[in-house]
């Protein structure tokens, strides 16, 4: 009993009052996360009209699909990507928002590294920033990770004690990222191309594969067309992957799939860091995606 009390008091004290000592097993508290997840979910909760294109997936989703560009084609795009989002969380997002948003097309942005991930990073991002519901708590408990559990506990106390009341996410963020309505995050940084990448051979976690299959099954059941896209990364990073044929072969099994790294070879200047497109890269890539959608005739308007 005493241990539980000390634990909870310590959790609140460390999370709230001594941020410089924030333990690694209390990884995110609201406002410390990157990627504007809080603002994005808030905006998603307020959507009151149908969306043409819904993008889901990891950070490359919310940094790689600009609603302002899609607007030029009269298409409403909303981005529900979040940092390190794995298929487990994507399935949750889809279940939570697809009935409300009623998208005409879903773009599944896939990053092979996240099919090999445990999903803890994304889960703490969700717990910190999304509205808590039973399903999210259930998913959190399934993570079997102390950091996820601590974050969940802290979130419950933070809500009870009003720590999150009136919270407004900083925009632009300290790193210069600007949140744009529609879930997009604009960055104008330029990658210096100095990153070194060790060769990597991806093997996917069965839990993530099962979640991905569930996503496809639900989209098919609801008869929502979908595209599976792999947006560009810097060449050196892309070339470090040694089993790309396996990766591409895997995604091709589940529907129409395009690996933009093969068709759109962007220079390092189109990236903000060693993984994400900057605004200039997004402009090029979105033009490519819009052409693809037009060619495939998904949104005949």
């Amino acid at each position, binding site marked *: 009993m*005493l*241990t539980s009390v*000390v634990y909870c008091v310590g959790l609140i004290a*460390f999370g709230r009052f001594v941020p410089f000592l924030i*333990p690694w*097993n209390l990884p995110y508290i609201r406002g410390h996360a990157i990627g504007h997840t809080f603002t994005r979910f808030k905006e998603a909760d307020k959507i009151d009209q149908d969306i043409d294109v819904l993008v889901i997936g990891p950070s490359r989703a919310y940094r790689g699909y600009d609603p302002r560009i899609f607007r030029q084609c009269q298409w409403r795009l909303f981005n529900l990507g979040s940092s390190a989002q794995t298929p487990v969380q994507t399935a949750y997002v889809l279940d939570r928002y697809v009935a409300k948003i009623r998208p005409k097309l879903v773009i599944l942005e896939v990053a092979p590294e996240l099919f090999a991930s445990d999903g803890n990073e994304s889960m703490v991002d969700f717990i910190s920033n999304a509205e808590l519901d039973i399903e999210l708590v259930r998913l959190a408990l399934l993570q079997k990770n*102390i950091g996820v559990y601590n974050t969940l506990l802290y979130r419950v106390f933070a809500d009870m004690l009003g720590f999150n009341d009136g919270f407004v996410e900083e925009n632009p963020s300290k790193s210069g990222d600007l949140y744009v309505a529609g879930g997009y995050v604009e960055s104008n940084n330029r990658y210096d191309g100095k990153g070194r990448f060790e060769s990597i051979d991806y093997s996917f976690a069965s839990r993530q594969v099962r979640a991905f299959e569930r996503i496809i099954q639900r989209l098919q059941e609801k008869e929502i067309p979908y595209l599976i896209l792999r947006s560009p990364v810097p060449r050196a990073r892309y070339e470090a992957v040694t089993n790309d044929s396996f990766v591409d072969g895997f995604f091709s099994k589940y529907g129409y799939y395009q690996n933009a790294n093969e068709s759109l070879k962007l220079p390092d200047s189109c990236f903000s860091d060693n993984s994400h497109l900057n605004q200039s890269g997004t402009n090029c890539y979105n033009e490519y995606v819009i052409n693809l959608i037009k060619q495939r005739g998904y949104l005949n308007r």
Partner: protein
Amino acid sequence: MLFNSISFVVFLPIVFFLYWFVFQRSLKLQNVFLLLASYYFYGCWDWRFLFLLAFSTFLDYSTGLKIHHAKSLKSRKFWLVLSIGINLGFLGFFKYYNFFVESFADLIGQFGFNPNIATLNIILPVGISFYTFHGLSYVLDIYNRKIEPSTNWVHYSLFVSFFPLLVAGPIERATHLLPQVERKRNFDYTKAVDGLRQILWGLIKKIVIADNCAEYVNMIFNDPGGYSSGVLVIGAVLFTFQVYGDFSGYSDIALGVARLLGFELLKNFNFPFFSRDIAEFWRRWHISLSSWFKDYLYIPLGGSRGGLWMSIRNTIIIFLVSGFWHGASWNYIVWGGLNALYIIPSIVSRNGRANLDIVAKGRCLPTSRELFQMVTTFSLVVFSLIFFRAFSIGGTFQYITAIFSNVGDQYSHLTSPEFRGIKVCCILIMLFIAVEWVGREQNYAIEEIMFNRPRIIRWSFYSITVFVLLMYMKTGGTSFIYFQF
């Protein structure tokens, strides 16, 4: 199965419950159960090596009996040599085969030959160095007529394979552990609680101190050329805390688990960082190995009976062998040799036993002289452990050279995102040292803090310790450094 894994968290309570509440009426049943649990524990790593463990046990058990019953000295020697030969043969094959082959190829390569010698992809059985030394001490003690051989196969097998000490020690002696295996054990609440406390402290050492240090140590040692002198020195200091937290944490958990089951194991660490000279350090660091080498190598070689030079020669030998025991690589041998060099002045000046008691006994703080001595000893240890961590002689010299050449912007790396948690890590280490200092006159640090205190204070301390553990531990069940030895 690791002590810091979820599977062990499930395994231990099951063993504890069945051991004390189902099999408590019969010593025989308790021992058979513990033996099966120990084999299961070991088999979780790789069941194939259970046969090697069983064979090694059988070998020492039967040669022990043969030595005891042999009529002539020649026959006793024969069985002893057979046991030692086969034990060291296995150890040599699994641990040292590739080292000898590669060293031989390098040597004859110096003379212009280019031999085509194949190395083997050998898996090192976890704990082989430890259980081989258990067995060797047993047959050597029988040969020296210090003990009578066990006539009970289960008792002897449990002595060798008792799961708390099976994979990384402490290296037990038959004279100490076998009698405990043979006599009835009764549940002692105080002892069990003490065991749990020691397990808790061991976990703090391993998953809070060692594993957090490991993150930065790995980064720094993997790219010594990329860091400044100051950061490299920090890397070496952090490794010193890592290896101590890792190995002494393992030993604390082993001792705590054994105490839960009614056994007392040999103490393996005794606050070595509070040593005032290297001789004292080696009386406090990996005590069970040091005393093993003293009893079975140093003394048979003549110890210090032959005068100063023999004492120096024998000291150098045991440190070199001790280094080689740690790993099949030249850097471990050099590490051993360096420690021998450190200790020779105290042999020459005959003040190696000047500091037998713990520092500042009965006082809160050390004198400035004691503090200076402790810092000097610690610095020597930090330097020697660079050889231990760098994995090769070339790597070691690259690291040391970088310490002296990468001057300039000393600490800018520490502000990069990868080193974000290093300040908190250093605060944790300082708290850890403070607790160890307060408890330095006891068996383990928090024994003193907990002993004879009101319940509310004890439970508050437990609660804070659990909080620190769950907030700052590294998840993922990282292995223990000494498993590779």
